[in-house]
């Protein structure tokens, strides 16, 4: 453990911050995936397209919730 400018820096702290950044990045990528799924569904309209969009929205919602918890923790 190191002390820099009166802040104690531990390996847990560094990896914790990295994990939070990663979580935000995955959330942004899932947002891109959400948009891309809508575009894919526009290109080819399949009967199960609606279910797939629901799955992606559910994943995004869950990820949003987890990101908020992880970032605020």
């Amino acid at each position: 453990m190191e002390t820099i400018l009166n802040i104690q820096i531990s390996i847990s702290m560094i990896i914790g911050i990295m994990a939070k950044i990663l979580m935000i990045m995955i959330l942004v990528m899932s947002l891109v995936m959400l948009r891309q799924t809508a575009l894919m569904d526009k290109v080819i309209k399949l009967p199960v397209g609606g279910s797939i969009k629901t799955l992606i929205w559910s994943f995004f919602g869950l990820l949003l919730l987890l990101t908020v918890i992880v970032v605020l923790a």
Partner: protein
Amino acid sequence: MPEIFGANKSVEIDEITQLEKSGKYKSMFGSFVVEPTKTRFESQDDDEKIVVLGRRHFVTNLKWIAMACLAFFVPMFWGEFPVIKMLDANTAFVLSVVWYSALFFYVIQNFLLWFYNVYIVTNERLVDVDFFGLLYKNINVTQIGKVEDVNYSQRGIFSSFFNYGDVVVQTASEQRSDDNSEKSAFAFQAVADPDLVVKIISELMEENQLSRR
């Protein structure tokens, strides 16, 4: 016998009739779907009918499925990694959450790319829809009448065992796929039952030539 209606012609395809009678090839998650219902594509004409919708053989997904299965168990062995051993319980838990989020993202993304990378054979055209990653798509369309030659190749034990291969459709155009990875703009890669695909396209070409006379 089912009739596939074109703009001003009626085409009967024996192969499709036989496949319909067999009752197989109807699942929307299948790699070879004959006359899919409630399916449309972006530039489809009102009188255009989809004869075959196909995608890569499911076996081609085994690589990423195996990787995902392996990755699923990695957090259970966090304790074996010296760096992670040094972390407090909360951080190790957060790391597991990030790991599984990334893993599910990877699985969904790979599934989407497999599911929506399709080729479509209609009574009038061939459509090849390629999505590369999440941000780039490439859609090739050609008229059946412009197809010059169609052939397929199977290489390796897996492709022979599971009956999948690459179908290459030669057109008058010299256009190739954007990433130059395919032999032609119309190369349907690792498709299930390539022999059937070639047969159906050949029959459509014959019908098209007959209707022109």
